[in-house]
């Protein structure tokens, strides 16, 4: 059990772009940190500890906990690095939550970042997979996701058009977010006419590579209200991992997300997630996930995800808007991506999401996904949880 409740009290992010050659990693991190401190009206001396991470091997340098100290504000402070692949950003958020909830720290700065422009993303991801059993045919994140989508489509009859509808939604939402990388609407035909990368994934179905950083300040309940009148309370966190080798995955279902979401709903007493949750920031690296995984989240029955999407329920004015930020399809600085989902959900709860604000959000959900089919979930609330 948590020793104290925890809230997000400050958020900062960079204006994410495909290339940031004007800054090094430490300077990129510093931009997000300065904005988060300004947002919370705190100074670096108020910060008790730092949780930082990115995806190892994604730049020509590892061990961000060491070399980023001047930029992160970690000089002579406790620093913990977390790196869990695609879920790094959401793991950082959960790790930050644990650090404060333990009662050992009251003000923790959580930082995720990536400079994808300085990496060979596919080569770097490949290093996470077994050299003997996994690498012969492996082709980075897209290959596994394509196999997942094929399995789902064969079982439930979903189509390319269904996937494209999700991409159209997120790319439209992205136009409301000044921080995101790709802000251009597309049509379903444009998605379907874009180059096929790995069947059934077209270029416009999938996320870009991004340089960016995100920083979130978490505080314990005794100091939260001294910092802000509009905190984002973290109600619950959950995380599940599954397999050893890629061939072990249950392709077409995200079992880790199904299990993690049920843990969250049980903790918070949520019975009808589509009705009770106001907005979801889903770590959705490609369009087809927006159909499959909402079924695993319990928002639609198995095989009915596409129908739910086409109904408009997940659009900005729908029953449960998804990815008001534009999501991962518009912007993917990988080590920051999961933390951006958390930050964007927090902004919605705090009422600070400006042009992408969903009205009257009481509860929000943010998720993280790793290429190894594991899931992180956080539940955010406007009210302080009574458990």
């Amino acid at each position: 059990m948590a020793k104290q409740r925890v809230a997000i009290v400050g958020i900062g992010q960079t204006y994410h772009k495909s290339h940031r050659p004007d800054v090094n990693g430490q300077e990129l991190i510093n931009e997000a940190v300065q904005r988060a401190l300004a947002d919370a009206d705190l100074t670096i001396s108020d910060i008790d500890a730092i949780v930082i991470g990115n995806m190892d091997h994604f730049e020509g340098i590892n061990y961000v906990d060491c070399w980023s100290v001047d930029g992160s504000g970690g000089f002579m402070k406790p620093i913990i690095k977390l790196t869990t692949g695609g879920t790094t950003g959401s793991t950082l958020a959960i790790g930050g939550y644990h650090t404060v909830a333990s009662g050992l720290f009251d003000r923790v700065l959580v930082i995720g970042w990536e400079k994808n422009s300085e990496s060979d993303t596919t080569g770097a991801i490949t290093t996470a997979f077994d050299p003997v059993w996994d690498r012969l045919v492996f082709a980075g994140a897209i290959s596994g996701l394509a196999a997942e989508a094929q399995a789902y489509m064969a079982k439930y009859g979903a189509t390319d058009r269904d996937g494209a509808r999700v991409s159209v939604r997120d790319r439209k939402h992205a136009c409301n977010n000044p921080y995101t990388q790709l802000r251009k609407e597309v049509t379903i035909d444009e998605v379907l006419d874009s180059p096929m990368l790995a069947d059934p994934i077209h270029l416009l179905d999938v996320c870009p590579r991004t340089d960016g950083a995100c920083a979130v300040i978490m505080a314990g309940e005794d100091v939260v209200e001294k910092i802000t009148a509009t905190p984002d309370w973290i109600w619950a966190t959950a995380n599940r991992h599954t397999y050893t080798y890629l061939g072990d995955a249950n392709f077409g279902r995200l079992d880790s997300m199904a299990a993690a979401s049920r843990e969250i709903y049980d903790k918070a007493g949520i019975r009808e997630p589509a009705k009770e949750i106001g907005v979801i920031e889903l770590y959705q690296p490609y369009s087809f996930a927006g159909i499959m995984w909402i079924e695993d989240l319990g928002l639609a029955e198995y095989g009915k995800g596409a129908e739910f999407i086409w109904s408009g329920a997940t659009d900005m004015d729908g029953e449960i808007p998804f990815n008001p930020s534009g999501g991962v399809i518009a912007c993917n600085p990988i080590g920051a991506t999961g933390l951006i989902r958390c930050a964007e959900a927090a902004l919605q709860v705090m009422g600070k999401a400006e042009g992408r604000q969903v009205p009257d959000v009481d509860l929000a959900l943010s998720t993280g996904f790793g290429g190894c089919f594991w899931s992180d979930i956080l539940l955010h609330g406007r009210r302080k949880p009574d458990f």
Partner: protein
Amino acid sequence: MLDTEHVIIESGAARQPFNYAVGLHGSLFLQELRDNRRFMAVKCPMCKKVYIPPRRVCGACFVEMDKFVEVGPKGSIGTFTILRYAFIDPETGEKKPVPYGYGFIRLDGADTLFQHYIDIQDESKVKIGARVEPVFADERKGTIKDIRYFRIID
């Protein structure tokens, strides 16, 4: 005026060898593949799940597995994709020849999927559930490349 030319730091003609143990179960699999063209999987004594490649622990039951069972060599496509985008193969440093069929093969008798190339000469036949068989290399060395690819059985 900013000079934005990239500076190249040379590494010379570098090799990057590393050691990697596949363990006793993995070694048995590769030896059987090389010597007898057989696929050896391992069965969990508790949940009875048949794992390929073989490994010592069933993660779900968290028990040791030591009962080998032969699976395949025929099977069916569990799922697949056709890789069409060009990328640098980190195993070779060279551009990977595309397109190629990336198969997750359900070998007869196995519960997990075995990854390998699938022949895509006739793409219309590459479907989930299609029957496949391995095409072995003439000279086998005890690596996963002792199978050249899986071909679809008409």
